[in-house]
């Protein structure tokens, strides 16, 4: 059953140099209880797309095409007043670096309590307080530490508090933007395992936005790879990245280079080639494939014709002339 459907969405930023299309006709969906990763490097549009769901886009950004439907409600064009009751209760967002957004002079239990009472004005004080302790417990923070100040916690623990807070009003969908980027490897593993546990326990759907494929591989059922504002590949995580027994079957050269970029401790001890160049300037008209200038397999057709997403295997799509038959 589909919880979130993003259909043909484009998002434009007005800038002093004209209009820039950060997200260009992107479609994706998240089923109930499913976890979807959006991967790609800075500027690919993944955060912009995520922010569009709870209508948190910057002032100079607009949804130019398409629709976003969450649990049966169409979101694009809703007023702040209409959207407000849906935030926290239907969809919650954990921002990049969120652990630094806690109020430094307020105890953490008060901060979570405030999130609950703001949205559930008639809630009984005792019930709300119990829920705060339950939430903290669910992220592995003991009741004895509930009345601590943020500075008494490490970065990893503050991130747990933010995740607990995001779940305060029992959202159906949690969108987490780079939730582990600033953390140490061991804390990263702990936070990712926490997200997995919460999904199982709370029947939560999750969108994990990250440049870190290892994080997505660990948590997500499916992955959507974005490049320069478009989806270039999507499919089951186990299929695209491979598992301990199967090789990755990523079809797009960009996905392949992202996978190869991080050394695999189980593989060869070699340094990857890496990509040269940069993504294209999105304020300019782009002809052909957006990845063509950096692609190791570039062909004539790539400079002329923009590839569209084609199905390679059930649920696995990629936009590349190597797989769509245009080459021959």
């Amino acid at each position, binding site marked *: 059953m589909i919880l979130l459907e993003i259909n043909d969405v484009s998002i434009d930023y007005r800038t002093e140099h004209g209009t820039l299309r950060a997200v260009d006709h992107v479609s994706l969906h998240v089923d109930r209880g499913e976890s979807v990763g959006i991967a790609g490097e*800075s500027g690919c549009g993944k955060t912009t797309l995520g922010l569009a769901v709870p209508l948190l886009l910057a002032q100079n950004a607009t949804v130019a095409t398409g629709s976003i439907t969450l649990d049966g409600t169409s979101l694009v064009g809703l007023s702040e007043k209409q959207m407000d009751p849906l935030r926290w209760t239907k969809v919650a967002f954990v921002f990049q670096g969120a652990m630094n957004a806690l109020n430094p002079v307020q105890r953490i239990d008060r901060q979570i309590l405030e999130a609950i009472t703001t949205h559930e004005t008639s809630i009984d004080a005792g019930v709300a307080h119990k829920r705060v302790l339950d939430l903290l417990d669910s992220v592995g923070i003991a009741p004895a530490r509930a009345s601590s100040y943020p500075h008494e916690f490490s970065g990893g623990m503050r991130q747990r508090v933010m995740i607990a807070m995001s779940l305060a009003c029992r959202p159906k969908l949690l969108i987490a933007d780079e939730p582990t980027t600033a953390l140490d490897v*061991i804390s990263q*593993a*702990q936070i990712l*395992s926490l997200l997995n546990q919460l999904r199982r326990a709370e029947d939560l759907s999750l969108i994990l936005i990250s*440049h870190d494929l290892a994080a997505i591989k660990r948590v997500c059922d499916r992955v959507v790879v974005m490049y320069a504002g478009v989806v270039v590949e999507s499919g089951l995580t186990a299929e695209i990245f491979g598992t301990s027994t199967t090789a990755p079957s990523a079809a797009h050269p960009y996905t392949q280079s992202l996978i190869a*970029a991080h050394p695999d*401790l189980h593989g060869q001890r070699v340094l990857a080639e890496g990509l040269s160049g940069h993504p294209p300037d999105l304020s300019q008209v782009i002809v052909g494939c957006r990845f063509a200038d*950096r692609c190791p397999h570039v062909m004539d057709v790539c400079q002329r014709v923009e590839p569209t997403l084609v199905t390679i295997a059930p649920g696995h799509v990629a936009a590349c002339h190597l797989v769509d038959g245009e080459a021959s």
Partner: protein
Amino acid sequence: MTNTPNVLEVKDLVVHFPGRRGEVVKAVDGVSFNIARGEILALVGESGCGKSTIAMSVMQLVVPTSGTIITGGEDLTALHGKALRQARRRIQMIFQDPFGSLDARQTVYESVVEPLIIHKAGGSADERRNRVLEALDFAHLRPPQRLAAVYPHQLSGGQRQRVAIASAIVLGPELIVADEPVSMLDVSARAGILRLMVDLRDRLGVSYMFITHDLAVAWVVADRIAVVYLGRIVEIGTSEELVAAPAHPYTKALLAVSGGDDRTGEIDPVSGEIIEVLPGETPSAAKVPPGCHFHPRCPRYAELGQPEVCRVDDPVLHLTNKSDVKSQTHEVACHFPEEPI
């Protein structure tokens, strides 16, 4: 001058800071290692483990509490003024943040020529210009003439880090201290910077002290790896040895999460409990546990029934035959290095 093949010898380095409540913060607590000419040594550990403080000490940006840092036959900790400035030329640093480490109002040329001006090196203006262009070319900022004239905001993160590398090599250093040089870059730009570092080692013979939290990256880039925990090196060896046959439980935990094959978050079929990679969090350097610094979180200590020696005696680095009976490079600081856990 001695005839040692080492460009850097750090011995018994201790850096203690006074804490706010009168406690002692033991950021670095007795660290020794050497870096040979043309060698890349990675210091791997989590934030707060002391790896950056070790780098700062080698750069003489913090004053060590005790210990010696020998380069070119001189102990940096005993040098002052002009002699220290001279010695510093041999060691250059690359920082984590290429957006913060370059002056936004300086062209690439001005950034890269600055070390030559400060150290009154590089000869005439023309000779300096040639050295700068050569350094830019070495850093693959091509064509150097064109890139010399641009400002940092016109460059990508990867290109900025190449400018930082050009500034580091322009004085012809023996050692470059690189503190997390790729962790703020996009995934696609990282490999290029790492390849450049290795390439400069091969072409110029420069050595690196490469500081990273990423064991997998250290494995492919470095010749040897030192794993740092709470101000101490807990294990050191060649990259192959350390990854193939880790002897310290902390190294094993780092390897498990870096390789993605730990079972963190899964439910233990026997106990029904959720598996944690390591219990708890790294203690503060102001509250270092007695005995082995790692014992409160150590799965081996728990499995062996909490032996007293771990709580009381501080283990020192000693050779282990975990990877190879004849290994003269693989050392571990653990009372029970042969245990399989």
